[in-house]
């Protein structure tokens, strides 16, 4: 379960209803959205990709639904 920078960018720019199940993912995404709003740079996108992929690899068994939603955007 890995996302790309392009998927992170889509997620960071997404303004519709968010459908995440894991609170850690909601907190992490909120933090990155705020960072991206202040600095919409490739570095912030890459950092977001890196952290979300770490979350997916560490918590693979409980993050499947969130991964599926993010990659469906």
């Amino acid at each position, binding site marked *: 379960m890995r996302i790309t920078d392009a998927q992170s960018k889509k997620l960071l720019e997404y303004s519709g209803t968010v459908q*995440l199940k*894991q*609170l*850690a993912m909601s*907190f992490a995404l909120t933090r990155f*959205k705020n960072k991206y709003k202040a600095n919409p740079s490739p570095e912030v996108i890459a950092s977001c990709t890196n*952290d979300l992929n770490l979350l997916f690899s560490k*918590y693979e*068994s409980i993050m499947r639904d969130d991964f599926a939603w993010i990659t469906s955007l």
Partner: protein
Amino acid sequence: MLVTPEKAKALVESGKLLHISGAESLLKELPRGNWIGGSTEYFLGEGGGSVTDALISVVELPFDRFKIVSYDADSIAGIVGDTYDNGFTLAIVPFDSPVHRKYALESAQWEGLYLSAILGWVAGYHLSSTRQTAVTVNGYTGAVSETGAAALHVELPQGKTAQIDIINIFEPDRERPSVFFAEDTLEVKDCAIGGKVVNFARHLRENQVNTKLPLVGDYSGAYVNVSFKEIVGDTVYLYAPVAAGIEYHLARGVDDYESAFREKLDLIEDSSDYVFACNCILNFLYGGLEGKDLGSLYGPVTFGEIAWQVINQTLVYLRVR
């Protein structure tokens, strides 16, 4: 489970890994061992919500790889680095202490926070007491502290995962305008409501807002509560910080807290893997939960909850799957 001090002492002496909550005076009498503790006299247990300074809540944690660490305000940011790669951390901070304020205001910015599983609670005291203080206990060293946090870092066996979640019975009242804050703070003067900068205290008074209901922040679809402590002059004091860049609404009212919790608890499948839970004292008091049995999520009733960051008016629980 709620047990007598004698039974709690025996459990500590058996060498088991324990989370203990109870009256400050009872915690101070327990022997050293593999435990952390925090003060409260409010509990959710088998017989429903209760208030007691005669019994102690003991949660047995069936894990054998762990470390118990104390932190003060200067060292608390190190809690993230001390977590196990696969595990969870259960932390207790004393209410209104420097370490509580530091954790509340800064934890959301700590690198790697959300990559770890950190939960916990804010220790308190009986609300009618003027002599008690909120304390935490590092049972391993025997250190009782009014200013420092006690944390239990647990390493899980391969194939097991810690999952922290919350039960929040409140929803944003979207018929009211959204509220934004310019900075992360526990003490608010101005905020932006409906695009206009206003004094928050004046707004709450003029609109006769029920401050027993929390502010609900929208964290990418997850609703996270911040509770009102008091309004003094032109300043609103909060039990957890509001954050810049988050859209808040005042919460919609809840008629029956017990039913609201039960409805949410019924949505959770298999409860056999619960490890720990705590619930907010404001839910206990405003919802009249004394004597009400909310099901199998037992534990301390607290002056604030930690689910990575400090939150309020929420039930926080941990399961290991």
